[in-house]
């Protein structure tokens, strides 16, 4: 057996076959491929594969090391869970898009050079956009185009950075960016943090994810931001800027989540917040911090997938997505509630759930690095995470006011997928060692200390107290929140308005001025010109003509017809010309 089967190839080459298969065979096939991919990841050996030359540059299709294996492991597991969740779909389109999307994400994770990385990077953007378009509503299609527009812009920025980097270093190989941060490094960083949804480049995520299909959003929640975390961990560990961006990000998502009424948009804001922890970890850059970021990405993909599946199940069953329209579903959907809550406890970092053993590693790394402010900010974000995902969302979605909605448990495949993710969330929380063993650096961290458990529970339970006390203040409101997408949604409109109204008015004013002032002036000057022409110029011309006529008569008398006179006149002329040249010209 070979050492390495590229799991991206399994998905991407496997995708075109899906529409050709029918019924049970198709279902078996879309599960078989992720299973094979998991197997491929588990059996692969670290090393470099697929080295080649392309336009005189070294290309490395796959570079396998511990960091890429962690991400590939969770990506393939999530692909399997996501496919189980989407198994009831009858159309092949979304399956194909999901396959290409997962394959591209895996392609990025193994990319050994920037060119390969960029190709898969763009593949991810296009494949995932389909998952938004597949929702088909007008709102979704608009959001899909905005999503594509932002990602294509980000891709161009990234490509620009890659080109400058290649010119400067002479190599396209993908690795830590060393030395001073130049323009190239900043452009690459900008491309990466756009996909990581770092504010102010976060709005594409919270704009598009809630508009995607129920099953598509589950995939989207897992891959784009986490490949960005991976590339950041690969290229920019220890970049101070990322610590602060990540800290802001963790709180930014939480603050917006308070205002949000759309259940999946609230969860999307918590992706921003959670990815903030990972970005902080990468920014700190110590072994423990990078381990923390990596393990948190691993745990995050599973619990966030689970939360999106839970909210998706509610949307699938009720057709509603706004918290102001939901409530009282716990009677009819108890299993969904229970599974959702496992995800909620995991993201909130309750002991014995996955978030507890991963998030704490990032916070501990910040503590070890003497960053008190970061520690406090991240702890506050943890409180906010439980407040929304663990309390507000389930309260208003499943409990709260009973809206008398007709509901039932979702299709069994959805419940099975949620159960798979839930089992992993608990398993990682209870037995963190297998995950720790996967991490890129050796782990010297024990999450289950007495202090850590009581402190976490203190923060969480008293957040719950705050929730109970101020419940009324949290009631969802029928509004949307302005985020940085304002600039291309409203701002673009203002630009168009500017083009249509003031500019058009300016243009009209200019033409008015020319009609009322300039044209009469021109007419007047034209008439004056005519007068001058007739009286002055013509008279002068006529006078000149008359004198020439007279001169001609006089000259006629000079025409003697004698050759010697002419020759004499010519010689006189030549001498005169020579004299003029000699005296005047010099």
């Amino acid at each position, binding site marked *: 057996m070979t050492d390495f089967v590229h799991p991206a190839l399994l998905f991407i080459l496997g995708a075109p076959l899906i529409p050709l298969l029918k019924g049970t065979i198709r279902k078996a096939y879309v599960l078989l491929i992720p299973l094979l991919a998991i197997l491929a990841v588990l059996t692969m050996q670290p090393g470099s594969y697929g080295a080649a030359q392309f336009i005189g540059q070294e290309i490395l299709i796959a570079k396998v090391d511990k960091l890429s294996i962690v991400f590939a492991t969770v990506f393939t597991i999530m692909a399997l869970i996501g496919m189980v969740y989407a198994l009831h779909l009858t159309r092949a389109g979304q399956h194909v898009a999901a396959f290409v999307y997962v394959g591209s994400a895996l392609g990025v994770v193994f990319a050994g050079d920037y060119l390969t990385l960029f190709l898969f990077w763009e593949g991810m953007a296009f494949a995932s956009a389909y998952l938004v378009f597949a929702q088909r509503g007008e709102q979704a299609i608009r959001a899909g185009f905005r999503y594509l527009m932002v990602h294509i812009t980000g891709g161009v920025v990234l490509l620009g950075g890659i080109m400058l980097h290649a010119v400067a270093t002479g190599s396209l190989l993908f690795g830590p960016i060393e030395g001073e941060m130049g323009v190239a490094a900043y452009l690459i960083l900008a491309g990466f943090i756009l996909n990581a949804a770092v504010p102010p480049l976060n709005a594409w995520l919270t704009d598009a994810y809630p508009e995607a299909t129920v099953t598509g959003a589950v995939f989207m929640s897992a891959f784009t931001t986490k490949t960005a975390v991976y590339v950041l961990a690969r290229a920019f560990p220890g970049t101070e800027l990322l610590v602060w961006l990540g800290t802001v990000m963790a709180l930014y998502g939480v603050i917006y989540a308070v205002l949000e009424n759309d259940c999946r948009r609230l969860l999307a804001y918590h992706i921003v917040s959670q990815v903030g922890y990972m970005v902080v970890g990468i920014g700190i850059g110590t072994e423990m911090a990078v381990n923390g970021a990596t393990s948190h990405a691993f745990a995050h993909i599973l619990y966030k997938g689970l939360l999106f599946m839970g909210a998706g199940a509610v949307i699938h069953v009720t057709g509603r997505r706004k918290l102001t329209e939901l409530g009282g579903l716990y009677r009819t959907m*108890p299993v969904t509630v229970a599974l959702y809550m496992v995800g909620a406890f995991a993201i909130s970092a309750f002991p014995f759930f996955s978030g507890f053993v991963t998030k704490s590693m990032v916070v501990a790394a910040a503590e070890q690095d003497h960053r008190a402010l970061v520690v406090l900010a991240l*702890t506050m974000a943890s409180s906010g995470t439980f407040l929304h995902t663990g309390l507000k969302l389930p309260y208003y979605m499943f*409990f709260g006011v009973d809206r008398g909605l007709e509901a039932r448990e979702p299709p069994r495949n959805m419940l099975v997928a949620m159960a798979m993710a839930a089992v992993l969330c608990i398993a990682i929380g209870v037995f963190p060692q297998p995950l720790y063993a996967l991490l890129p650096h050796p782990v010297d961290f024990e999450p289950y200390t007495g202090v850590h458990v*009581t402190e976490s529970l203190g923060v969480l*339970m008293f957040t719950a*107290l705050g929730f109970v006390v101020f419940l009324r203040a*949290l009631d969802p409101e029928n*509004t*949307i929140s302005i985020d940085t997408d304002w600039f291309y949604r409203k701002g673009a409109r203002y630009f168009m308005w500017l083009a249509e109204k003031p500019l058009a008015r300016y243009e009209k004013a200019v033409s008015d001025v020319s009609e009322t002032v300039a044209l009469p002036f021109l007419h007047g000057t034209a008439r004056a010109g005519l007068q001058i022409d007739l009286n002055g110029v013509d008279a002068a011309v006529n006078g000149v003509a008359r004198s020439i006529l007279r001169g001609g008569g006089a000259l006629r008398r000079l025409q003697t017809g004698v050759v010697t006179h002419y020759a004499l006149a010519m010689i006189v002329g030549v001498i005169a010309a020579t004299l003029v040249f000699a005296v005047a010209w010099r």
Partner: protein
Amino acid sequence: MIKRIVDFFGDEKYVNQRRRLFYLVLVVVVVADFLVHREHAQYLWDRLPGWSAAYGFGSCVLLIFVSKFLGHQGGLMRREDYYD
């Protein structure tokens, strides 16, 4: 079993039991925080038992009111047809 647990958190008739359980948990958490062994306290607040409870409550309240303030007074929250 799952249904019974979920019902416990939802049904009106368990409201008193829920409340008592909740207060019990709060007390246990704070008491445990006083009893737990603290090895290396790096920051001042690490040495304060009950700090995390106070910080958790404070964070929660702060987040709710700062966000709502930004939403209402800061103009972040708009009508749903704002972009239409």
